[in-house]
């Protein structure tokens, strides 16, 4: 009965689809089990914002990262796992409930160390099951949450400090209080739209006493301001109802960011690092009367450097005199703040420090380059080698096999590494090719040369990858032109048609035809050249901060058309999209043709010139540095005369980069602040890709042309690769309407690769390799739940070779086959013949795939080809295959012989129970003597072993030959000959016993009423 109803159900479901309505599948419905792989790297890790430890269990530690989510360790920091991968990855604060710290975790999103390249958050999240599930509980417009404090006795009472918007006015700032565990919130301290809360701290002994540091700040694309009249430190003693400034002893005048901490062991002792407009008054202040008065203690560089980036003070929970201040290198005082010394050697830019609850010599430190730990109070530091939080600004790929990925990292230089490596992609696989902050790294199209750079094109290197020699080649100012203005993340480009050509952009477009030795300026100033946005020496507010990071009115993206080298596109950070059709002689500014929804001067982040038409290009603009988080992506097919929006409401967050498919013009990939989006219909609908792909900021995307791998440079989770996107090319309405559709399978290579693996230690991050086995890819209209669904590989004559387990997801399924068939059936011995675990490889060629689902059968084919890099001849491969088959068959025949021996022995022993017989004893002796030469009959599988017998000898040679590709060596062939002789001899001996002795046994058995011998046939035995 049930089946009929199910059928009815299916019928009704399909009827509702049967109308002419377009099938639009979203997200997981479409992508099925296509899964991204995260390859790191982790050796340079990335920026850490906040650290938190369980209040009673020192094995549990949380890391809140700048762009890579929240990670949890349950083993004292030995290993971390990401626990926030479905949500925004930029973290401001992690806090555990003081009464239920095992289960209740709060995460305030949006990083709070507000450098130019920060990501954004989107609210406050709560987990009630230790981080497995999360719910957003508000503060959607907070952008950055700096603090969460919870009443230790009544955990319904909570305070949240919202730093708020960095690039715009915002009212969702200040101190908020909840008295119902976060369901409703009241704003209890608010200054104005420009002033946020950089810290709320609850007194450790009196939960009604709170301190709040308020900070006036603002960033734009070209400037930063820290400080003003409204920055101040406040105290409340009535649970946030009233607040008073506590500045007695602080400098007067404008203040900037104020770092603040209360000693956990003595609530009268407070420390504060104050940013003052009077330079010599900036420094550490201490109060010993809970904020009534302050005393200036120390103005060391390490304490006052870059307050917007370093404003965390941590105090030893057991000793109020031990104080650590975040900073360029981190400073530690053991005399109550009078003097400081630097912390041990580690990556620069220290953002948070955590003392272990039980042992203050054990500390954790979060830096721009990952998490460090120390066992000796901060003297000796060791990096945690398994946090792949690297923050790429840009990436590119080459055409090697395997291809390499090149890219530059925030504060971590420039690198390249392979897309696959024996044993996985690990630290040793990555090569450093630049200092400072790294941005774009481009490979010369035909030579083993790459270009890399550091911030603001201070250095641009041409690096010879074979000789490891470098030459700095950045364009320099020449007569008749203004000073060059390079962006912090300065653009460069290579040409597909002229391999030695190299472009760079300042406000001008620079072209070199000799790999950067000589430069020619081929444009006028292509920016708006707005002088008001070029005052970087005044940037920083009350503390000057002219790092070059705010350089503006610069070119940001350059691309030469792959179809016509004279068509060059340039996009600028101040909103211009310029194009030349004559190699730079004349330029046309197409900005006015961008639809009006884009505000003037919106940053042109990326232009992609299409392979589908000379005049076709895509432009991605983003206005986040003005507080505009809308998504802007446009397409032109007429050199920018018209630009058409290709985004839909499906997309959440602003976009930075786009990648077109080289085959299907309607297939596009968009990198946004919150992950990867894909359209299969030219932008009418977009789907977020979430299979092992967190909503991390995707700064750049490349499509590798040989493998069709989509390679993403993320700002917080390293390189993420979506292997082989080619199935998405043929998704159309016709395919989506089918119950089952097989995509054409690309022939796979039987790789002759190293079997030896890598060298990573147990706790080092290793990125997974792509699965290079042959892929069987198909689309299922509906998830398969009931009834059998099977898949097998057959040879072209329809003989079954092996069964595979098919994927059953709605959407795209990917099944792989490694080209191996079942291992030989081995003779039963006392111990195991390890060589028998080797599965033989099929020869390269085409094989049938047969999938059955219910009563339907679906067929496809896959092909393996030999490794093109191999030096082997066809004859050598044939010799390998023939020897393999011979030894495989010998193993199985031997298994059958031993089976026969055991069957006869069993019967003989049974017959013996009815009385002794010389004939029976002879059979038993002869068979046991023979068996002892064939298989082990004593010992175990480790060192209490018996010497290998014929079975083990055959298996060893079989495994040696079958697991390699080479023809058997002369020595192996000699050994094979010997084994064949022994095998033939054994066979003859057994036949002799069966012919001469067993009939006598059978006659004896008959007399005793023992059932007759009845062997399985060879085929039955092998197949069982």
């Amino acid at each position, binding site marked *: *009965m*049930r089946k009929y*109803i*199910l059928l009815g*159900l299916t019928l*009704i*479901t399909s009827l*509702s689809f049967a109308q002419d309505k377009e099938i639009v599948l979203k*997200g*997981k*419905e479409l992508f099925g089990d296509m*899964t991204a792989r995260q390859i790191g790297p982790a050796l340079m890790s990335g920026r850490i914002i906040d650290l938190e430890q369980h209040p009673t269990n020192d094995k549990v530690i949380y890391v809140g990262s700048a762009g890579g989510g929240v990670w*949890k*360790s*349950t*083993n004292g920091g*030995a*290993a*971390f*796992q990401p*626990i926030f991968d479905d949500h925004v990855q930029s973290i401001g604060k992690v806090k555990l409930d003081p009464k239920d710290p095992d289960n209740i975790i709060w995460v305030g999103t949006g990083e709070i160390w507000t450098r130019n390249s920060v990501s954004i958050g989107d609210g406050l999240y709560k987990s009630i*099951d*230790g*981080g*497995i*599930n999360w719910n957003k509980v508000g503060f959607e417009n907070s952008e950055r949450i700096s603090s969460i404090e919870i009443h230790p006795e009544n955990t319904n009472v909570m305070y949240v400090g919202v730093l708020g918007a960095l690039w715009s006015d915002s009212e969702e700032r200040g101190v908020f209080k909840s008295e119902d565990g976060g369901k409703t919130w009241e704003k209890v301290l608010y200054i104005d739209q420009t002033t946020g809360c950089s810290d709320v701290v609850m007194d450790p002994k009196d939960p009604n006493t709170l301190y709040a540091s308020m900070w006036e700040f603002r960033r734009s694309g070209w400037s930063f301001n820290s400080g003003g009249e409204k920055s101040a430190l406040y105290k409340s003693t009535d649970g946030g109802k009233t607040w008073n400034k506590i500045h007695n002893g602080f400098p007067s005048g404008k203040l900037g960011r104020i770092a603040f901490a209360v000693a956990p062991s003595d609530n009268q002792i407070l420390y504060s690092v104050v940013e003052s407009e009077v330079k010599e008054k900036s420094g550490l202040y201490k109060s010993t009367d809970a904020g009534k008065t302050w005393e200036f203690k120390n103005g060391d560089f390490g304490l006052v450097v870059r307050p917007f980036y370093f404003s965390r003070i941590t105090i030893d929970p057991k000793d109020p005199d031990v104080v650590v201040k975040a900073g360029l290198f981190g400073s530690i005082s053991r005399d109550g703040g009078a003097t400081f010394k630097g912390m041990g050697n580690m990556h620069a830019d220290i953002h948070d420090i955590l003392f272990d609850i039980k042992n203050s010599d054990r500390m954790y430190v979060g830096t721009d380059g990952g998490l460090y730990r120390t066992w000796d109070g901060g003297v000796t530091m060791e990096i945690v080698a398994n946090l792949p939080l690297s923050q790429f600004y840009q990436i590119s790929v080459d055409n090697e096999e395997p291809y390499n990925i090149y890219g530059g990292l925030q504060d971590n230089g420039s690198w390249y590494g392979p897309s696959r490596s024996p044993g996985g992609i690990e630290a040793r696989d990555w090569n450093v090719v630049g200092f400072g902050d790294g941005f774009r790294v481009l490979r010369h199209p035909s030579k083993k040369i790459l270009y890399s750079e550091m911030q603001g094109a201070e250095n641009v290197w041409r690096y010879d990858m074979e000789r490891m020699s470098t030459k700095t080649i950045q364009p320099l100012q020449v007569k008749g032109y203004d000073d060059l203005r390079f962006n912090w993340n300065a653009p460069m480009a290579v040409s597909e048609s002229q391999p030695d050509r190299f472009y760079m952009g300042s406000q001008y477009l620079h072209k070199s035809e000799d790999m950067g030795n000589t430069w020619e300026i081929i444009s006028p100033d292509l920016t708006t050249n707005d002088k008001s946005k070029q005052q970087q020496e005044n940037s920083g507010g009350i503390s000057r901060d002219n790092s070059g990071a705010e350089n503006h009115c610069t070119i940001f993206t350059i691309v030469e058309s792959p179809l016509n080298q004279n068509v060059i596109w340039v996009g600028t950070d101040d909103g211009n999209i310029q194009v030349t059709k004559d190699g730079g002689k004349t330029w046309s500014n197409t900005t006015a043709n961008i639809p009006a929804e884009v505000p003037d001067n919106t940053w042109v982040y990326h232009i992609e010139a299409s392979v589908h038409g000379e005049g076709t290009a895509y432009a991605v603009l983003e206005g986040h540095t003005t507080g505009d988080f809308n998504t802007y992506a446009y397409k032109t097919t007429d050199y920018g005369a018209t630009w058409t929006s290709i985004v839909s409401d499906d997309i959440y967050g602003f976009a930075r980069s786009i990648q077109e498919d080289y085959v299907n013009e309607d297939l596009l990939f968009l990198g946004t602040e919150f992950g990867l989006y894909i359209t299969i219909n030219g932008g009418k609908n977009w789907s977020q890709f979430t299979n*092992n792909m967190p909503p991390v900021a995707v700064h750049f995307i490349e499509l590798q042309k040989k493998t069709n791998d989509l390679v993403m440079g993320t700002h917080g989770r390293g390189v993420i690769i979506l292997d082989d996107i080619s199935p998405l090319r043929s998704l159309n309405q016709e395919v989506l309407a089918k119950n089952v559709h097989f995509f054409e399978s690309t022939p796979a290579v039987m790789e002759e690769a190293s079997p030896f693996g890598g060298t990573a230690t*147990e*706790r080092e991050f290793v990125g997974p390799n792509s699965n290079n086995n042959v892929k069987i890819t198909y689309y*299922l209209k*509906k*998830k*398969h*739940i*009931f*009834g*059998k*669904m*099977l898949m097998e590989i057959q040879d072209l004559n329809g003989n079954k070779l*092996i*069964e*595979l*387990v098919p994927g*059953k*997801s*709605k959407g795209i399924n990917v099944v792989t086959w*490694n080209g*191996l068939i*079942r291992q030989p059936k*081995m*003779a*039963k*011995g006392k111990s*195991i013949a390890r060589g028998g*675990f080797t*599965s033989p490889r099929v020869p390269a060629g085409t094989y049938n795939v047969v999938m059955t689902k219910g009563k339907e059968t679906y067929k496809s084919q896959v092909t393996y080809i030999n490794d093109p890099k191999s030096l082997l001849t066809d004859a050598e491969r044939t010799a390998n295959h023939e020897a393999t088959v011979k030894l495989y068959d010998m193993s199985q025949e031997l298994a059958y012989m031993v089976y026969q021996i055991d069957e006869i022995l069993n019967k003989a022993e049974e017959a013996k129970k009815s009385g002794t017989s010389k004939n029976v004893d002879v059979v038993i002796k002869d068979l046991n003597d023979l068996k002892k030469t064939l298989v082990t009959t004593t010992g*175990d*599988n*480790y060192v*209490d072993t018996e010497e290998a017998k014929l079975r083990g000898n055959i298996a060893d040679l079989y495994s040696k030959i079958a697991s390699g590709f080479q023809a058997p060596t002369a020595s192996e062939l000699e050994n094979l000959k010997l084994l064949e002789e022994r095998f033939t001899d054994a066979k003859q001996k057994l036949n002799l016993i069966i012919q001469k002795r067993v009939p006598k046994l059978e006659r004896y058995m008959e007399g005793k009423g023992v059932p007759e011998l009845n062997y399985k046939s060879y085929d039955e035995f092998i197949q069982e």
Partner: protein
Amino acid sequence: MKKLTILAIALLFTVGNISAQDVTVDDIIDGYLENTGGKDNWRALKGTKMTAKVNQGGLEIPVEIVVMADGRTYTKISIQGNEIYQGVFDGENLWSTNFQSMKPEKSDQETTDNFKLNLNDFPDSFLDYKDKGYTVELMGTETIDGTETYKVKLVKEPIKVNGEEKEDVTFYYFDTESFVPIAQDTEIKQGPQAGVIQRITQSDYDEVEGLYFPFSISQGIKDGPSAPIKMETIEVNPEVDESVFKYPGE
């Protein structure tokens, strides 16, 4: 008859677009147990014997899994004709064959104690879950393997992990049309993978003497690799050699 009603309800959901909020967690659990054979039939089940060939990239290993209603269980693996027992429980001892010495060895006491907590889970944790003191919660809907599911949280007796007590939580994903579970998630609680979510998926449900079992099961890491097992046979109320369960070391 009840089967019919539940399926008719399921039908209504699809056709009438009744939102997930209208379904209670007990509707889902009852629907699942009824649709797969009925609670009484599940209660009457005395044991199951499953055979499978586990295939790991060409290496094929025959496996036999027996689970009895009283908690006795074994997994038998055949390697080169040798039968190796894993995860055997005789009512008191949990033991396995050591692969090197081929001799039986007991599991550590904590593992055995945790195992005993699951004796009441035959044939299904959800059957009479209230009597077992379990709690369930409908957490909403989620797309699993491209299809809409109800996510149900099941909390069983707390277990011990390296001496520390931990909640025993599993998240089940029930197909919204048929109410059968198609996946379940649990957090790995120890070792270097601690904190990673283990995912088991089930499909190819088929009938064996009136009860529906998944004939295809895959175990792995959420968003990561998994190892599939295809059941060849499932036998209900099997006859088994009683002596196999007994820990032979004593």
